[in-house]
């Protein structure tokens, strides 16, 4: 197992270089003018202003030159400076990643726990009303557009009933705690700000539920299918015949095995949501990686686009690795095979 992990880690830099090269070239050859975000549309006709901006941002160099400089800087931990925010991309990403991780982790908890619970109910009471209701709930999670859900959730819980706060990570008028980890829940606690902690937790509820519901749909359907498969196995019949309690059979014997296929989907969903939660981030004004990626793409901010892609690629590679390790831990047959 250790050999597999080491082998994967050694290959990772080469895979990342491949991602960097592909992204860099795609971004450079995408039609459009990145100078718009630097000098504004009206100045693109001003040769002097255009020349000055190109020189300042290195856009007057050839693509191979730019690529070589980029890779060299990357090797030294420099992802370049964003055309749009004018800050180092690494700093931008470091600033936004905790916000996204905080949201995605909560959404994954909601999605995984809810999805598994729905799957158990659905599989155990197959074709009953409970099954249909659980499947409908899962289906809605997969089908309903998150931006619509987000707006409806805000309208119901923030505007109408005022049970939960509106967009943002913290009350807009509140003073944010000093940034230590970037995770608002952690930083408020570190600052001894209990009211801030509760406020941050309340701000997390709606976006987590909205994002988590879509995860819940995927997890519920996958786990239900494998639960149904597992529940038909002989060892389950044997456990029941021996008088094992219903819940024990479901959770201990069936779920433990049915969860294995779900691990892959959970791993990849987590990696995907790091850069893919853009709609929820937009609706809830959540300053995370997703909204950063969209703004970068919109303004052809090459360094930011490449930076986000590297982060996303790294996320997928790590998720893949963790999934494989978790797979092996959950299934002894996989351990032997690797």
């Amino acid at each position, binding site marked *: 197992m250790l050999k597999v992990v080491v082998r994967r880690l050694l290959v990772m830099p080469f895979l990342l270089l491949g991602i960097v090269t592909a992204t860099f070239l795609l971004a450079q050859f995408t039609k459009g003018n990145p100078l718009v975000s*630097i*000098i*504004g549309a009206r100045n693109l006709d001003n040769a002097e202003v255009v020349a000055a901006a190109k020189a300042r941002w290195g856009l007057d160099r050839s693509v191979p030159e730019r690529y070589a400089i980029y890779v060299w800087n990357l090797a030294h931990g420099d992802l370049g400076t964003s055309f749009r925010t004018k*800050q180092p991309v690494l700093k931008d990403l470091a600033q936004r990643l905790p916000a996204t991780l905080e949201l995605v982790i909560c959404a994954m908890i909601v999605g995984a726990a809810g999805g598994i619970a729905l799957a158990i109910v659905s599989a155990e009471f197959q074709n009953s009303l409970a099954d249909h209701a659980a499947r409908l709930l899962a289906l809605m999670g997969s089908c309903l557009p998150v931006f619509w859900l987000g707006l409806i959730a805000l*309208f119901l819980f*923030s*505007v109408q009933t005022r049970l*939960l706060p509106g967009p943002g990570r913290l009350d807009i008028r509140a003073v944010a705690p000093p940034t230590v980890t970037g995770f608002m829940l952690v930083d408020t606690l570190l600052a001894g700000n209990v009211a801030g902690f509760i406020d941050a937790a309340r701000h997390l509820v709606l976006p987590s539920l909205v994002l988590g519901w879509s995860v819940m749909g995927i997890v519920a359907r996958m786990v239900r299918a494998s639960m149904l498969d597992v529940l038909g196995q002989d060892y389950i019949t044997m456990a029941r015949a021996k008088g094992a309690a219903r819940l024990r059979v479901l959770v201990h014997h069936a779920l433990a095995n049915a969860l294995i296929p779900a691990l892959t989907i959970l791993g990849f969903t987590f990696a995907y949501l790091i850069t893919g939660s853009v709609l929820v981030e937009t609706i809830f004004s959540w300053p995370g990686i997703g909204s950063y990626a969209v703004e970068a793409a919109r303004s052809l901010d090459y360094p930011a686009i490449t930076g986000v892609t590297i982060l996303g690629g790294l996320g997928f590679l790590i998720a893949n690795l963790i999934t494989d390790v978790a797979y092996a831990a959950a299934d002894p047959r996989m351990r032997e095979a690797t």
Partner: protein
Amino acid sequence: MARRSRLAPSRSFATSLATSFAASLLASVFFLPLDVRSAPAADGPLVVARAMDVNSLDPARAYCDTCQIYLSAVYATLLTLAPDNQTIIPMLAKSWEVSPDVTTFTFHLDPAATFSDGSPVTAQDVKWSLERLKNIKGGPAYLMDSLKSIEAKDPATVVITTETPNSEFLGILAAPYTGIINAKLAAANGANANADAATSDASDTWFLAHSAGAGPFVLESYTADDALRLARNDKYWGKKPGVPGVVLKQTADAVTQAQMLQSGTADIAMQIDPDTAKTVSVPDATFKSVPSFNFVYAAISPAAKGAPVPLTSDVRQAIALALDYKGAIDFTVGGEGKEQSSAIPNGYPGTKDLPAPVTNVEKAKELLAKAGHPDGFAMELEFPAMNVYGVDLSLLAQKVQQDLGKVGIKLSLKPVPFTVWISDINDPGTPFALGFFAPDYFGSAQYVQYFGMLPDMPWANRAGVGKQPGLDGKEQLALYHKALAATDVPAQEAAYRDLALKMIDDKIILPLVSPNLILAYRNDVSGVRYSACCNLPLGEIEKK
């Protein structure tokens, strides 16, 4: 083992009781309605929800709508625009004189004016700031195109000379991009005003975290894509702002902005479109529809490669006559806008009583037949796929498609990202496009410089001035010089009016919609207004 009394609660019962109690307590704290938990404090900062487009916070590099709001709140300018959006009034300069040939401008600084660190605003700061604006060659550098020299005669007197007469220079000096910077402080942090400032000035990042102005607010913090926080400048030399601070909160979606206003999370929502405004009901908020100087236009470029037929004057006239201008306003902004005659917006010098655009389908067909296209032709309409000033350009494009279909011109719609659109209109050129424009300051020259058929101007190059029949550029250039050399308002108005009529005749730029701006704010907020120079003057806003 001790036997548990039958009357004592079981362990599991006790546990579930405790758990239920804790859960209830947590839920009651967690879900307590917002009103009870924390009603917005009256002495808290003003919250403005808007989709921010900040490209820099450095006055010499910033160039965006949000930048106008920020810069006018933090950096004082020599002059500013009165609430009537037409009159230039004093700010840092308490008085000024203009030479008869409109090339020399002498300003006398207000001795009370100080920067936020308490140091006085001097003529040297003015000279340094304006020279830097020119030399950085950033987005707003064009405002200093005519600058020849600046002389700090004494600490309170500055003399600015322009290369050519510039009757709009006072208006330009009211633009927030010309905000005066504390030169000593900025220079100590990497800024310079040298001729090579475009490459040697390294203060861009410093300006993202600090400010060095003499405006009513100072920069507290800025996090891109999240919030821009301002605090009241306690050493402000003018009328103290009515709020202790301002938070410009990034809120991309108009519906979310409206919801924030409804719930009281935001005090002002800046980009609520007319449709959204009609759907929300907020008794404790005001929704005011005011005319703006922004507009959306169609542009015809006869010189663009790929024009299906020669886009002659007759063809352009036909296209202009086929468009239903009133219908476009109803279709896109539900009637919350107005027609605009020329590329110079209503209310700007030279636009009084200009003839309104006319729709005449029969006449359009006649002109097309005269031009040799009795059955019309097929053409592409390229536009940025976005919503600007509340106008959905896709919707507007469909309306244009529908209108031109009536005269046999079959349009295929080509929505593209803005960065692609801006690239395409220059190279290879786009025969027919939709675009949009908002002013940088109060003055008509900026419109002539961008839309006029003058040599070397952007749309003139795209249209082929000097190469296309009827577009020689000489007449408009002469009128432009006349307008800039005008020594009084009537003469200036007359020259711009002649220019506007010529631009209308060219039928290169066809203004379609000048959408109203929806000012949406909670009723405990006052002083909210739209400014042609500064967008939303934050220093004038008060909160009860």
